[in-house]
């Protein structure tokens, strides 16, 4: 391990340092014969796997073949050139989020969510809000100290602002899944402008948007506080809310791991 860090240039590891061994599987739209295996090897070579070996080939139906290929990858990775966007807040377990809300707000934290514009696809907002949740994590509705109002699909911006005011929302979550001609950017810009107009400066709720087409680093540009992209779990959103709206929760802050491990609802034990 330390050896790799010293060199900063690494390659895949099979059973010996520097062997570059990689395993891939893929399907080609051809029946299985010698030519098909040759095609698999040609593809492997183009992926940088050379020499490569087809260890398994199985025809599926008349027109497809599945391959498992092992090979030596000729590419190198320079660790110094790896760029990642680090999560700026610690991941909390649901109980820790609730404790933080209780301690700092002494009332439930009010979250409203909606799909705005013509988007009728509530899959994103539902995954984050509905108790059923997503990726093995319960949605925000399951958190005892979050008061969640899911307004559903095709909510107009004025309605959203009005609901936010009536419900005294602390945070507003907006999802945009299906979009055409950059409508998601337009909708969100319009939404954030409407909130700034309706609220005295500095009192707008925390504005959060999510969806597969957003760029995580474009929050300021769109006038919102945070953007969440594909793969975000309810726990991440809840942790962010606690981070933004509640005083720094007690307990040691762990530096975020260098890889984005799939965090379950339970906080991983500190080693």
């Amino acid at each position, binding site marked *: 391990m330390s050896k790799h860090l010293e060199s900063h240039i690494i390659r895949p590891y099979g059973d010996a340092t520097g062997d570059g061994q990689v395993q891939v599987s893929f399907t080609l739209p051809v029946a299985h014969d010698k030519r098909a295996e040759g095609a698999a090897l040609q593809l492997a070579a183009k992926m940088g796997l050379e020499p490569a070996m087809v260890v398994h080939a*199985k025809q*599926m*139906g008349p027109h*497809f073949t599945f391959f498992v290929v092992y090979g030596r990858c000729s590419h190198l990775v320079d660790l110094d050139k790896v760029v990642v966007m680090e999560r700026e807040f610690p991941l909390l377990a649901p109980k820790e989020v609730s404790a933080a809300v209780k301690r700092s707000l002494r009332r439930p934290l009010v979250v409203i969510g909606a799909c705005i514009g013509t988007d009728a696809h*509530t899959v994103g907002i539902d995954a984050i809000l509905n*108790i059923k949740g997503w990726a*093995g994590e319960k949605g925000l509705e*399951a958190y005892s100290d979050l008061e969640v109002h899911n307004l559903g699909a095709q909510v107009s911006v004025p309605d959203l602002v009005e609901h936010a005011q009536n419900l005294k929302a602390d945070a507003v979550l907006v999802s945009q899944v299906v979009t055409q001609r950059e409508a998601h950017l337009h909708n969100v810009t319009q939404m954030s402008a409407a909130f700034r107009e309706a609220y005295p400066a500095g009192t707008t709720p925390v504005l959060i948007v999510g969806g597969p087409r957003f760029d995580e680093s474009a929050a300021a540009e769109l006038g919102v506080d945070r953007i969440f992209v594909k793969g975000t779990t309810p726990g991440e959103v809840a942790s962010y809310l606690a981070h933004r709206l509640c005083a720094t929760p007690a307990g040691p802050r762990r530096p975020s791991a260098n890889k984005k491990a799939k965090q379950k609802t339970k906080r991983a034990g500190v080693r």
Partner: protein
Amino acid sequence: MTRRGKGKLELDPAVVRKARSLARKAGKPIVTLAKTHTTVSVERAVLRLAGLSGADPEGEPWVNHVVDAVRQDVGLEHGVALPVWHAMASGDYADLTKLAQRAAAGSVIFHAPEGRDATRARSASRKAAAAGLRKIDNNRKTRDRFTKKYGDPPKPWIYLIVATGDIYEDMPQAQAAAREGADIVAVIRSTGQSLLDFVPEGPTREGYAGTYATQENFRLMRSALDDVSAELGRYVRLTNYASGLCMPEIATLAGLERLDMMLNDSMYGILFRDINPIRTFVDQRFSRQIHARAGIIINTGEDNYLTTADGVEAAHTVTVSQLLNEFFGKEAGLTDDQLGLGHAFEINPTVPESFRLELAHALLARELFPNAPLKWMPPTKHMTGDVFGGYLLNGFFNLVGSMTDQDILLVGMLTEAVHTPWLSDRDLALQNVRYVMESTRGLAEDFVPAHDGFIVQRSHQVLGEAIDLLERIVDDQLLNAIADGTFGLMKRPADAGRGLDGVAKHSSSYYNPASELLDEYFADAKGHAR
């Protein structure tokens, strides 16, 4: 059949009877509620049964136009049948579509007829609804004929999902899935359809994470599967979803287009889609009556409880839901062989003895419902993206399915939680199923858990907890229990949720020809059974 014989879990028949009687007690007030209310979707289903289909150029279905117009003129509480067929008799309309077009233009004023007018409208509407039911009956006969002609696959039936969003892509994919071994093809619906208060019209080519359920899509897919059934010499069943705000209409369309199985849970929409409880129960009873008549097997959604709650702690909520689904289903006329009660392999694999717990739970469902075609659902919650580990987990899932004689096996994908299945994912998954089923064929016969051992005790414990929960539900009333968050922690009060404004209490002159015909049919069937 071995499994129908003496139980392996030594369940006390008196305890099982008690569980059923509590479910009946909990469900009865709901049935009364369902019998005394109607919804916009029930009324639209009556019109669909009577043959009204199609939509205006904007895509709003004619049935919506008619029900909205009637509602505006005379309210929903009398039902739409009498006002509609009274209008048909008083005006000059070639058919229901013409009436609907005029109603949409605002040039029809509906009245609630009385006296002889009411009698005439009643008999005309009854005739129209009966014609629709005849189509459903004929479809049922056709299915019976095809299962004889093409052959009915042996259990467990292999259940695969297709979901491209484009019906014209779905058809060849479904045929390919059937050729690969699927006995059942389920077409997942487009996200968000459950919250639409209308059924889209025509063939659809755009959907998100699924394909819209429409009458034309149903017809196209059933016909594609008929072709492949003939080719393969086995009847391939088609599944869709009768849930959400249009449950009664979708059930009706399923009956009219010979779908074979429908997802139809008693509480899923309430808990997971925040649909109003009364709306759900009223819609559900009508949809189940239609399913019963159509010979459609319902699939219930107990697996969902375990995706939100813990697979061990919440095991008894599955049993409670199965018992409630059984009560509501049978009350609506479904027979045992139409009750595809659900359960799932969702215990955290790191829990010690998790496999024995899964076996205990699966066997409990098997023995509580010996004649129901149980639907066994693969792991989802603990599928992580580690496709290798996931493949092993699916193997264990298949093994439980074999050892406990499950009837409908939803095939687990190693890439669950990663992406919608690729061709190779499906092929690998089916290899897994085939290996386990072939290598353990008949193992259920050898598998007899130790007398008073871990599995037997665990099953008794779960049944005991289920009875305790049912007792609390009976004391509290089911609607209050739902409002209080008894199920999956979700609080769903009866006076909130989506679709509540589409519910009306029957007036003394309420009339629904479809309900009347369905009630008569099941009363008859019960009479014959005695």
